[in-house]
């Protein structure tokens, strides 16, 4: 037995079967934003809130910069839609709206009294997260995180800027490794 559940979806365009970019569509009935891309789910339309999730991490040996600079991630994880961009594997927004952005770093420090500072940046120009100083009280693993609710326009880039005064090495073991940047689309606002 099945229950017929009818819902009105206002004229979704046909599946996207050519081109390489992500297409978007807003249905008139609900304001829901949909995206589609040639080669992803056969080009079928999917709700953006369901599918726009992004996670990129650092896998190769890497020392944090000693002055604030872009953190170079090197591996996107489950990036079906290809949201990562550029040599830093930063996030590119294909649709405007509010996004939840989070990043985490872990380094191995040799002494107490040092710290990590992190900023989430839009287009390398606008700082969306407060300065976060996470300070060590002993040698060993020093963890830091930062998060922000960001409003992005089409084409905006999101990346992490950070530094650690001694330039200690990131921890890159694990599957996936711990140092990462993640982004999720929440809605239009």
């Amino acid at each position: 037995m099945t229950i017929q559940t009818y819902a009105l979806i206002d004229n979704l365009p046909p599946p996207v079967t050519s081109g390489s970019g992500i297409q978007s569509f807003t249905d008139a009935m609900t304001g829901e934003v949909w995206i589609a891309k040639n080669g992803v789910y056969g080009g079928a339309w999917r709700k953006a809130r369901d599918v726009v999730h992004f996670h990129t991490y650092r896998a190769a040996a890497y020392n944090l910069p000693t002055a604030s600079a872009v953190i170079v991630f090197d591996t996107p994880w489950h990036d079906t839609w290809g949201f990562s961009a550029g040599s830093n594997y930063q996030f590119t927004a294909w649709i405007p709206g509010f996004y939840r952005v989070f990043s985490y770093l872990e380094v191995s420090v040799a002494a107490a009294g040092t710290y990590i500072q992190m900023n989430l940046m839009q287009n390398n120009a606008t700082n969306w997260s407060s300065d976060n100083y996470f300070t060590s009280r002993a040698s060993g693993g020093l963890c830091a995180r930062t998060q922000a609710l960001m409003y992005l326009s089409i084409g905006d880039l999101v990346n992490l800027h950070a530094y650690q005064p001694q330039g200690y090495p990131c921890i890159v073991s694990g599957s996936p490794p711990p140092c990462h940047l993640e982004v999720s689309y929440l809605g239009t606002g």
Partner: protein
Amino acid sequence: MSLVPAYAIPDNLPAPVTSGATIQSFTDVWGDVWVAKNGVNGGRWKRARDAIYAKWFRNAAISIAGAAVLTLDTMTKDDYGLYSAAAFTVPVAGWYDVVFQLAVTATATGQWCSARINVNAALQGIMRAHSGAAAAISATCIQQLAFNAGDTVNAVAEASVSLACTPLVYWTYATLQYRGTG
């Protein structure tokens, strides 16, 4: 640009689930994932993004030392019974937000505690807090992870020396929330 018909049908949800003990899932033609379970919401189907959420916390006293799975002994919300035997079990594949916060009462400066998230017994995330005084400290590990159905998620607690866990819902807790298919 040609358009498909104005009316579209989310693909015939199955009947409510009225038998068995496991969570059932269904993906409609729009890609939305639905879940249902016998005895929950009358077995009716709900969107996974609305329904798959669980929060548990530690209420009883316990000491934290070497890294070990922490049992969260009290439920805040877990309609679908995701947490059992000290682990969340992932009901459907997809992207999830996972949070584990651990609080302990430091007895001196220079101590630390770590909140770890293990998936299938392997470390996936860690956050460490260092004490600057003899006072409560908390570490919050936050991860967005892609899971397969059946994956297990543990909260693992560790401290530099044996320290008393600081219990209660706002100090030591874990949550699991489905966010979408990706």
